[in-house]
């Protein structure tokens, strides 16, 4: 009987005493939130099919594996933001809820909604081949922040005061992330900042036309009001020594970021008119004068390079040329950023490498480049730009901005184990070579992006808290809830991406701080939100009731429903690829491949046996039981 054969042959997963999962050893004690017992089938077997009849939680690796594969946006987000959840809230016009849902993962939704590097969008299933373009996830995050009701309720689940104190050095994204979570855990947090105001790269690296300062101030204030003390204009290692902080506080987290620009290191690099991209942005953001010539050349291909180019246009540069070693395809910024920089009038020159800077009387007059050609990097995925001999040519310039990366500046007056230029930490941890000193964010990883740094800061806070509390106080679980409907129409799949309105170029250049992106209206946000497939909905066929009529396969928009003979299992216990078969004798099930499924709901509608179920899945952070 087919219903017997659906039960997959692999042994059930058990949790052993040491916390690892294995298929061999017998169960020692039942998992507290075990739900695999509700599976369909005979006693003692395990299947991937479970009919969820009530809200259930799981910490089974199969379920974490499922979430990683099937909700690609959330998996790609370093902070694991519940993206389908907050997008669904926007569809339902619950902007405040959407904002708070965001905040519980990434703390600064209005900020990130403007400047996030959007790893989620690159992973979005709607952007797969033949499925169109990814959902504008980031802009929806901003919409939640823009459209939430005034004076909406902020939600924080605070723990009782612990009496412990922690110093956080640096108030950039990692520092803010760490300070927030430590404060929630009930610890006394003091945030030390070298600059006049909190925010780090957010305030001093990113231009105001991309991130208005009132937005940033508000979101930082929401963290500070949890009881975080902010001390600005304090340089640790100069005004106060690290060893004194370690004496005074129970733990110290350093999140000093990468604030030291890499220099071009070529002849003429010290000339008047050559400035690093980071200095250019910091001085602009401090309101200081920074000389910008008529003809500006930017060297570099990252976000800082783009920001410098756009800032120099606002300072009156007539020609702005961005020079990159490889090609636009390999630029680490998104297409959107490339488009905006071009619309504003900058031009991008690919395949060039800086050779030397030319000038007279100590003043820049131009820059000599070599053309490059691309060669495969050892991994075969990236490219290395190799200068071509005798290909030198000169571009004239009055100002040269080199934005070719940053590295940490670590001068704490105390020996610290380093990993190259970065602070060394224990593998898989945030603890440095000095006891009670933790490090997180760009000073550990090298220059990355805001969301990664913020997520790292939060994780470091969890590690510090574990030290104080003697146990992890929060845990991630997968939550299941039966759903009665698809929440989608097939027509939604054909909605084109809603382009966020932007300020006309003329108005951008007139007032340099004018925000370029204008935000979605309610109508636009609602329309864009409908595009989300809601990948967190899990579709399953109850094979015990399936009559193998294959009507679902007939209406499937792509090869998402499969006749399968087996399912692979990965070493971590999660499920892998389906073994498909065209031979009815080998078919053990008709299964929905949720990695291919675009949640259109057509199968659910046509099934004559109502044997397709929908389950809402969600990664949730919960208090661990004591």
């Amino acid at each position: 009987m087919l219903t017997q054969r659906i039960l997959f042959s692999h042994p059930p997963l058990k949790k052993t005493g040491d916390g690892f999962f294995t298929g061999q050893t017998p169960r020692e004690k039942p998992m507290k939130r075990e739900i695999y017992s509700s599976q369909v089938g005979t006693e003692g077997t395990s299947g991937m099919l479970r009919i969820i009849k009530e809200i259930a939680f799981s910490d089974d690796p199969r379920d974490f594996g499922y979430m990683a594969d099937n909700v690609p946006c959330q998996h790609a987000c370093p902070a694991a933001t519940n993206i389908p959840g907050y997008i669904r809230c926007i569809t339902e016009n619950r902007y405040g809820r959407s904002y708070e849902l965001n905040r519980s993962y990434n703390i600064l939704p209005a900020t990130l909604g403007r400047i996030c590097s959007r790893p989620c969008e690159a992973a979005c299933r709607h952007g797969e081949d033949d499925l169109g373009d990814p959902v504008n996830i980031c802009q929806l995050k901003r919409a939640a922040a823009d459209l939430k009701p005034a004076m909406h309720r902020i939600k924080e689940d605070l723990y009782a005061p612990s009496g412990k104190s922690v110093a956080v050095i640096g108030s950039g994204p990692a520092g803010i992330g760490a300070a927030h979570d430590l404060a929630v855990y009930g610890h006394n947090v003091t945030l030390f900042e070298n600059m006049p105001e909190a925010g780090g790269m957010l305030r001093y690296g990113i231009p105001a036309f991309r991130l208005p300062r009132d937005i940033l101030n508000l979101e930082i204030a929401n963290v500070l009001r949890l009881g975080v003390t902010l001390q600005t204009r304090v340089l640790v290692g100069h005004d106060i020594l690290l060893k004194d902080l370690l004496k005074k506080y129970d733990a110290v987290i350093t999140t000093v970021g990468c604030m030291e620009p890499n220099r071009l290191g070529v002849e003429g690099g010290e000339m008047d008119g050559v400035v690093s991209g980071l200095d250019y942005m910091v001085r602009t953001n401090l309101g200081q004068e920074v000389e910008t010539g008529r003809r500006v050349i930017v060297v570099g291909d990252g976000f800082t390079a783009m920001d410098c180019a756009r800032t120099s246009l606002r300072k009156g540069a007539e020609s702005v040329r961005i020079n990159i070693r490889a090609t636009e395809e390999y630029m680490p910024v998104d297409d959107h950023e490339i488009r905006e920089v071009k619309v504003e009038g900058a031009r991008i020159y690919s395949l060039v490498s800086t050779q030397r800077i030319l000038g007279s009387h100590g003043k820049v007059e131009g820059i000599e480049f070599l053309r490059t050609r691309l060669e495969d990097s050892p991994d075969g995925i990236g490219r290395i730009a190799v200068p071509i001999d005798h290909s030198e040519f000169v571009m004239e310039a009055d100002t040269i901005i080199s934005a070719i990366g940053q590295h940490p500046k670590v001068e704490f007056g105390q020996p610290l184990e380093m990993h190259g230029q970065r602070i060394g930490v224990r593998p898989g941890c945030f603890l440095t070579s000095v006891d009670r000193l933790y490090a997180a964010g760009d000073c550990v990883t090298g220059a990355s992006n805001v969301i990664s740094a913020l997520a790292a800061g939060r994780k470091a806070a969890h590690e510090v808290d574990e030290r104080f509390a003697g146990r992890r106080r929060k845990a991630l679980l997968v939550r299941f809830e039966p759903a009665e409907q698809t929440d989608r129409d097939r027509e939604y799949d054909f909605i084109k991406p809603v382009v966020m309105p932007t300020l006309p170029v003329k108005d951008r250049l007139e007032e340099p701080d004018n925000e370029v992106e204008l935000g979605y209206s309610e109508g636009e946000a609602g329309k864009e939100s409908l595009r989300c497939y809601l990948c967190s909905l899990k579709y399953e066929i109850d094979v015990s009731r399936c009559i193998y009529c294959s009507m679902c396969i007939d209406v499937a928009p792509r090869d998402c429903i499969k006749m399968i003979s087996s399912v692979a299992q990965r070493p971590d216990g999660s499920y892998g690829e389906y073994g498909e078969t065209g031979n009815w004798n080998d078919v053990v099930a008709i299964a929905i491949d949720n990695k291919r499924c675009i949640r259109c709901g057509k199968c659910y509608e046509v099934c004559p046996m109502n044997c397709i179920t929908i389950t809402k899945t969600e990664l949730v952070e919960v208090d661990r039981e004591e």
Partner: protein
Amino acid sequence: MPKDDHYVIIGNGPAGNSAADTLRKEDPEAKITLISDEKSLYYYKHRVPLYTVGGCEPEDLSIRPYRSYLENRIRLRLGQRVEKVVPAEKLLYLNHMEKVHYTKLILAVGASARRLPNHAGFADHLYCLAGLDDARRVRKAMMAASRLVVLGGDLISMGFAREARKAGKEVVFILYSSLFWPVSLKEEIQQSVTKRLNSLGVKVMSDAEPVTDVRPEGEGYTLTLPDGEEMSTDLVLSFFGSVPNIRFLVGSGINTEKGVLVDHLMRSNQEDVYACGDCAQIYNPELKDYWVSVGWGNAEAQGELTAMNLLGREKVIDYQPKEIFEMDGVTIRTSWWKTFA
């Protein structure tokens, strides 16, 4: 096993056809397939402006009948767009999900109309003229139009202006001298371009770039000029040259910049993948820069050269093909272009 060779050429223009013919001549046994996303047979590009004003019919455009491919055993697959190239598996994916295997691949995909980034806000209202599909749209729109505004221009814009005038249309040419394609206009050439256009009865505006807005109004369109003045017209056309059709290659591992980056033997960085014609970009040691060739003659020559190299008979690209472009009476000395905004 030469008999099992399957040479696939993408692109049914001068480069693709010349490559296919050369391959057939040099390798009588091989299987040759020519794939194009256009539905029409190989056609004369310079007659396209005439076609848009109704001066000739579609059949007058075609160069080569279907029979000729049959006789040469070149499999012609028209109206089939290649979605993706996977060099590691030597596979092409067509837009109807069919997979095509190749042993050697020639990319001769040509170029399509270049659109200016600062026209992006109203790009939907601008007509372009790169392929025959564009031409059909323009021809249809031209029937009802009596007043045209041309923004640009490029090598074919002048031919178009001439044909439009002959057909009795009123033509205003807003000249973008710094963005002229393939070379920005120096004072001297600008004067001769203006003179030539004036002699055709075209009104030339050389200080009205860039147009800041185009919006539909009634049956026609209203343009906004940089000084805020408005102009109404029946049709707005955008002529800024072309950009190689390489979007479908992004992510394939084939190196591209403006075009497909190839070496002096027209080889891309991926084994057995070649490119030629308007889509190929080559480093030129004399110019000390990468360049993309323009024009029919260069495309045909490169197609032949690529076919020879593919067959292992090394022929190196001539870095200075001597070409002078006649742009409807105005001479431009260039056989290549390097940059675009």
